[in-house]
């Protein structure tokens, strides 16, 4: 299949007074699995629909390969989209659903049959070709919707929250299958989701959106480890945010918390910012004071199985710490005075 890259330049879109997309620019490489991640109302679905050609016409540019498709009718774009609701037509059999796009393209019926069979084979549902959609389970409907979209060999595949209507165990299985298919076909794919785990496990790169603006673009690890702002830090997993200021003493940088405790920062870290971000698993909890530790008091603890989560007041805020749990290990009781040992090489200054 053809691989096409996507380039979006300065896209603006408003519904009446509300600005839904506010200057979105991004570039997706050919064959990439790209995720739009964001809370509801962030504009991620609107952005996806704008690429497919649905909704009001935005200002800016949307390039597929090297042609500008903005303003083109949806049926002239050759972009495949899988809808959140799957949108299988209830009055057509599975076979007719999958063959719909090919018939619109006026292919000879023999070729249509071959292609539909191949597509159904690809999603492992050949045996259901003559069923009606309402006789299928959610997961099967999802796969038929996917087959219906890829059978027309679109240049780009758009997935609008494709897993949100499935139950939890099926969701994990389907996302693996999606990824396998995407790799097999090499289709440039955009996946919209509000679930960070889905985005993390599937995408090569992702864009985090909020308020119609892209907050950060990068691989899942980059975004988790090096969030560029507080929104991204908070949206991707649990983040401990310490407020304070940076002091530079010769070659040494240190971070002074509101409570006057200091943490020395690693050489590579940024020198501008009023916050440092620490992930819960990058802090350990001790009875003894040591270099680069913060004093604190245990407020609350939760046993989560593989981990114990402590809530400790330190540095003028409440800090979440995840300790891995081993049998026979000591607990820190509520009210215990403790010292938090911070791995400052993982700390991000914002």
């Amino acid at each position, binding site marked *: 299949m053809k691989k096409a890259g996507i380039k979006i330049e300065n896209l603006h879109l408003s519904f009446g007074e509300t600005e839904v997309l506010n200057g979105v620019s991004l570039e997706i490489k050919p064959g990439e699995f790209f995720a739009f991640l964001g809370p509801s109302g962030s504009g991620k679905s609107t952005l996806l629909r704008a690429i497919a*050609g649905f909704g009001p016409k935005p200002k800016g540019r949307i390039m597929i390969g090297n042609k500008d498709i903005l303003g083109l009718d949806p049926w002239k774009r*050759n972009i495949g989209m899988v*809808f959140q609701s799957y949108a299988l*037509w*209830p*009055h057509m059999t599975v076979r007719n659903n999958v063959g*719909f*796009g090919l018939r*619109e393209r006026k292919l000879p019926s023999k070729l249509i049959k071959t292609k539909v069979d191949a597509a159904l084979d690809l999603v492992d549902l050949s045996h259901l070709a003559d069923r009606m959609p309402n006789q299928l389970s959610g997961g099967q409907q999802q796969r038929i919707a996917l087959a*219906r979209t890829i059978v027309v060999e679109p240049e780009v595949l758009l997935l609008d929250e494709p897993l949100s209507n499935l139950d939890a165990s099926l969701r994990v299985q389907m996302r693996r299958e999606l990824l396998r298919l995407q790799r097999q076909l090499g289709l440039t794919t955009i996946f919209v989701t509000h679930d960070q785990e889905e985005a993390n496990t599937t995408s090569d790169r992702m864009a985090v959106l909020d308020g119609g603006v892209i907050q950060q673009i990068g691989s899942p690890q980059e975004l988790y480890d090096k969030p560029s702002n507080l929104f991204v830090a908070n949206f991707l997993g649990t983040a401990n945010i310490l407020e304070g200021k940076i002091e530079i003493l010769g070659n040494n940088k240190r971070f002074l918390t509101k409570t006057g405790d200091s943490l020395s920062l690693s050489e590579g870290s940024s020198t501008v910012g009023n916050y440092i971000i620490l992930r819960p698993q990058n802090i350990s909890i001790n009875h003894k004071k040591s270099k680069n530790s913060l004093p604190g008091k245990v407020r609350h603890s939760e046993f989560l199985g593989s981990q114990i989560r402590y809530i400790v007041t330190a540095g003028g805020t409440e800090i979440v710490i995840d300790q891995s749990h081993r049998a026979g290990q000591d607990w820190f009781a509520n009210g215990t005075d403790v010292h938090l040992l911070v791995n400052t090489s993982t700390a991000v200054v914002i």
Partner: protein
Amino acid sequence: MPQNPYILKGHADRLAKWLVPNLSAIHLVAVFIALLLIGLLLVPVAQVMIVAFQDASTGAATLQNFIDFFQTSLFRESFWNSFYVSAMSVVVATAIALPLAYITTRFHFSGSILIQSLGFIPLIMPPFVGAVAMQLIFGRNGTINLIIREKFGFDIPFMNGLNGVILVQSIHYFPFILINLSASLRNIDRSMEEAAQNLGSHGLRLFRRIVFPLAMPGYIAGAALVFIKVFDDLGTPLLLNVNNMLAPQAFLRISSIGISDPMGYVISVILVIFSILSLWASFLFMRGKDYTTVQKGGGGMAKRILKTREKFLSYGVVIFILLLVLSPHIGLLLLSFGTIWSYAPLPDGYTLQNYVTMWESSKTFITNTILYASIAATLDVIVGTAIAYIVLRTGIFGRKGLDYLATAALAIPGVVLGIGYLRTFHNLDVPFTNEPMASWWVIIALALMIRRLPYALRACTAALQQVSISLEEAAESLGATKRRTIQKIVIPLMAGGILAGFVTSFATAAVELSATIMLVSSNNDAPLAYGIYLFMQTPSGRGAGAALGIVAVIVVAIGTIASQVIIERNKKIKSTGDSH
């Protein structure tokens, strides 16, 4: 040793229980309703069926009546005409409803509210009431043709013979298609269309392959309803003096030859068979086709903003259709205020005299109507509530049967029920008198009750479904008996729905003609609808008839609005109760 009195009492108790297992008040109510429905619906209809298959003189079972029927050219013609008129009415009603439904559901169109409110006005007028007014506007010497003839020198036979029936019926019944089709169109999720566009489909092709098939179940439901209503209707053809159709033939045979003539019964059987067939066909078509695809949070179909030219075109179409649809009302209003209206585009002058005449000569009609409709509507909601409770809240054997039996009245045309009552009750005397029951006014009220029961039952069932069982269980756990719970919890919570059912039953029973026309034996017992029919028989009475028609329209309009208001208010109360 003296016998223990308690043991004896225990035996007596057990004996009573064995003889009358589980007999409770609710069982007695169920049995009473069953008897009522059997006596007032099942027996009369069965009578009609039996007579149709019986030799008139010997009483032996025979198909001869049907053979006679199809060997008479007048009946063959009537049969064909009824079929043709019903089918054509569906076609014309579709032509009226389709653009309205499409424009309101697919476009941001400011006239939508106009369509939604005015589009349903035809239903608040009994079709026969508008028929005479239509004659004056569209007839050979009506307003439109007088103007056309003067300008262009030819006529358009809008109202000639069957055309008139088709026009009046389709204008009256198109809202059934409009309501169902609009609901279907609204229930199509926009992703259905978008998925097709995404795969390369658009325009008319998209409409033909996706939108129309998805809206089909709603359309079929509406069209089947229009077909039956037109097929069964008696009033409109009678008033337009079109007698070569089935329902008028049945009426004329029975009223002129008498209740022993088998042809009226044969026609009744055919009417019932067609009713059941079209209900069954639409049921078959709809089975497994719940195409409601709107997702939670989904917005139905994507609405498009009209371009200026399209907007003018849409307004043109909508205003033209609405004028057509409102023409019976406009005509009736003119007729009721007009002095003489004949061979002229408009009445010669305007007066209130018709209303005075109407009031002086129609007091009995109006009081009779109020009496009959009140009795019918009251019985409807009592029986409806009882059946709803028995079906939804008890495990009484055969409870579904009560529901089906009451609902079956839908498939029985008014003429058939009327004939059945005449046949069943003409041998019975009113208690304590020598009057035959068939000409007793109470029978008219009971016929109206049976005719309106299916609608009242639906209203009561819906009302009870909204009352959560846990509310009753809470009362019972706090010590209330079943009876107290029904009195204090169930009925008050159902009150809005019951009232809405009552008002609708009352308003529609007040203008019902097809069953009553068979049963009215003297003008003193006649209700309003029959009064209009009488007035309209003579040209001099038409003005007063129109005035009475306006009264009928107002009664139904007030009833419809009141029941809507009650339902809306109830919804609001319920929703404030639910919110946190």
